[in-house]
């Protein structure tokens, strides 16, 4: 399943990005997923739960931003967002275009991280 590979890649990306940091816990993961990426959000959520077990991402909230499809339309000379795709056709001039500018994303945008305090007391100014 595609979603499993993607979820595994996600954990790997986060773990590598955080390599060398003090103990931490990820509380939230933000993804940008294009509507043409072929990824099913619910399947990804399921796989995410499975592959994050026993990792610093365990229990974190998965936020998926769906990115609509946008094409570059030559006659209009601009990038047009498509309310519905396919067809990849400019709603203004009806010209078809295969130049997809957005909508195929599979990206991790950011993560929320809590630094874990282990067996030590820390005096912090009251916030």
């Amino acid at each position: 399943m595609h979603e499993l590979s993607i979820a595994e890649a996600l954990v790997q990306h986060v773990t590598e990005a955080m390599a060398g940091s003090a103990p931490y816990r990820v509380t939230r993961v933000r993804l940008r997923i294009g509507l043409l990426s072929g990824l099913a959000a619910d399947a990804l959520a399921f796989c995410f739960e499975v592959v994050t077990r026993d990792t610093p991402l365990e229990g974190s909230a998965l936020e998926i931003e769906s990115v609509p499809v946008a094409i570059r339309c030559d006659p209009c000379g601009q990038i047009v967002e498509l309310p519905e795709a396919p067809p990849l056709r400019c709603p203004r001039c009806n010209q078809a275009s295969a130049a997809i500018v957005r909508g195929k994303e599979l990206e991790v945008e950011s993560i929320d991280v809590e630094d874990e305090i282990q067996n030590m007391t820390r005096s912090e100014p009251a916030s």
Partner: protein
Amino acid sequence: MTPRIVELRQGLLKKNDQLAAALRLRFQDAGVFVVNLVSSPGTGKTLLLERTLSALKAGGGRPAALVGDLETDRDAQRLARAGVPVRQIQTHGICHLDADMIERHLDGWDLASHDLLFIENVGNLVCTSSYDLGESCRVALLSVTEGEDKPLKYPGIYNSADAVVITKIDLADVCEFDRDAARAHLFDVRPGVRLIETSAKTGQGFDDWLAFLEERPQSR
């Protein structure tokens, strides 16, 4: 404690894309043109490839194939009968090939002794669309038995294809396959894409298909 936000802004397939870019250079250096064949299961990919390899070899070509399958090597065995080098990639349940699998299966293979390398991807129209394998061009298959609206259901893969081979065209009438509708739907997701109608059973359209391969069309 308030969590801090760590910006990553990374493509999840970045590693695959980097590996694929390296593979692409390696293929170019070896002078081998690489075709990534994608389709749903049962489109007749292996039969098309079997006939293609035989025809290319008979014409003095030096083709080879890498065949991806979930578990068995039945397809590779079939293709090997064409008398050309065939290697099997068993993905063990993974629904697509990735650049790493390709790289690992090129070990000890003298790529320069081939002019054309086919990669028969796993039968899947969703997952295969996201993975660049370093190919020179991507060809998607659509069989007349699948229905004309398949491109609309799987726009991602057909959009990324440099050509679409319609297979089993000898069954078009029996299946009431509407050529015009299929063409219109394909153009909806990939305007102007090259279409080649074939039958690996009767040989119909194979001249067009072989001519397309002869052109060495580079990906957009």
